[in-house]
């Protein structure tokens, strides 16, 4: 571990904290444009966070310590996830702390915490949201793991950093298996981030919501932390997708030139990715909750297909 490595690691974390609400704002703005609504300002999520941090917290009568500690725990999980996904450089001192499988575990830890908190207060909406979240989660997780196994088979390592180094800095090779894995990953990230085919992030309609139902009881700085964590999750998933499937531009090691180039490249990739996300969300309709298993089952099968194609086409010469 070097001093400059540590500096860039901390820089990447700070950048994740600062950019995550901006990404959410950008996606919301694109969505509004595509739906012929007048768009909220790009910085709207920051205003929301600012407002919520200055409001008083109102706690339900039955709320336990768990309820109050969950926002911090979820925020911490997402921050850790952002720290170990290479965004700018592959020289990350924190990366040995967790490989991709542990990364999936970190995401599911956050999910378990937030579902428990939703059930803690004892309102019916919370329990409903928590149950639905676990349904989506337990279907999405194996698909995500299969996607990761496909990339891990290519690079023969489960460490995110090694995967990115293999894909970005060796000779360019077309991996058909990555096409399958990429589509499966897109499906999973839509489900995990409470996006349109599974959940609508903009709605407060009681019967359709998943994520919003779980956080109904939160207010003030707790809500702010949860909203920020949701933005960080979107950012983390976007960066993971970019790192696994479009890793070009991420600097190898700590050369200043490479890192300075990596920042605008990352911004450009996130801008395009956010725009695409908004397009996909606009042209799709939210499916019934009972269609969610089909949606995620397809993702799982595509990821398995990716593994099979990897075995069939790419392992022999």
């Amino acid at each position, binding site marked *: 571990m070097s001093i400059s490595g540590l500096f860039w690691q901390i820089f990447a974390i700070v950048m994740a904290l600062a950019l995550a609400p901006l990404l959410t704002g950008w996606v919301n703005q694109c969505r509004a444009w595509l739906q012929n609504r007048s768009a909220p300002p790009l910085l709207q999520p920051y205003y929301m966070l600012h407002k919520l941090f200055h409001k008083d917290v109102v706690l339900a009568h039955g709320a336990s310590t768990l309820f109050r500690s969950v926002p911090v725990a979820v925020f911490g999980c997402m921050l850790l996830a952002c720290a170990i996904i290479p965004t700018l450089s592959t020289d990350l001192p924190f990366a040995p702390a967790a490989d991709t499988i542990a990364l999936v575990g970190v995401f599911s830890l956050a999910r378990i915490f937030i579902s428990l908190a939703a059930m803690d207060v004892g309102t019916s909406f919370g329990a409903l949201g928590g149950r639905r979240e676990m349904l989506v989660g337990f279907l999405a997780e194996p698909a995500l793991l299969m996607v990761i196994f496909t990339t891990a088979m290519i690079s023969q390592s489960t460490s995110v950093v090694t995967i990115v180094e293999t894909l970005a800095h060796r000779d360019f090779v077309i991996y*058909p298996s990555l096409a399958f894995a990429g589509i499966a990953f897109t499906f999973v990230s839509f489900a995990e981030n409470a996006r349109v085919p599974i959940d609508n992030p903009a709605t407060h309609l009681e019967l359709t919501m998943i994520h919003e139902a779980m956080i109904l009881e939160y207010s003030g700085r707790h809500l702010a932390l949860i909203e920020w964590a949701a933005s960080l999750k979107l950012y983390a998933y976007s960066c993971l997708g970019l790192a696994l499937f479009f890793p070009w531009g991420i600097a190898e090691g700590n050369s200043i030139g490479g890192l300075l180039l990596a920042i605008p490249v990352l911004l450009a990739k996130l801008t395009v990715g956010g725009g695409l996300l908004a397009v996909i969300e606009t042209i799709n309709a939210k499916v019934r909750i009972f269609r969610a298993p089909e949606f995620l089952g397809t993702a799982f099968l595509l990821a398995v297909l990716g593994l*099979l194609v990897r075995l069939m*086409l790419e392992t022999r010469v």
Partner: protein
Amino acid sequence: MNADMPLSAQLINLFASVILLLAFAMLAQRRVLTLINLFALQGLTLCLSTLVVAFTTGQAHLYWSAALTLLLKALLLPWILHQLVRKLNVKSEIEALINIPATMLVGIVLVMVAFNVALPISELSQTITRGTLGIALAVVLLAFLMMITRQKAITQVVGFLSMENGLFLAATSATYGMPMVVELGIALDVLIGAIILGVFFFQIREQFDSLDIRHLEKLKER
């Protein structure tokens, strides 16, 4: 690792994978019109893959078969099917005999079987396209599965045509394509088959007021 594989082989593998992906998408698809569009896309990918093989191996007749594929499977047949759907007015969702997730699970098993069966064969082969033989077999089996699990006549025809795509891919990958005469014959067969089946659709619908082929089981001689 396959870093020393030539770019053309990588491209062929990529196109073959896309064809497999489209076969799966067709298996999961509920709407007839999207199904036909996916079939057209599959034909286009097949044409591209044949073009790459033709360019790499210098087999002149493969250019002809690529052009034939483009004309027939990416343009003409989807157009005929679109016309049929419009005339028959069947835009509703397709009912499958088995529900879609179960069908896809069966599909994955079929892919595994196909890959395992093709593995020893493709090891014997020396062609640049040998890896795609398993995929071609898998596409054929998936098209079979689609024909078995779907009830509407139109989807069965699309399954039949998609199976022909798979066979074509198999021929290209195993032996750089069939002789031109055979290819022309098959292309004509497929075209005539689709047209005759189109006529059948009208007859079936006039007889039963539906395109559900389950009604055909009740046919009896008078």
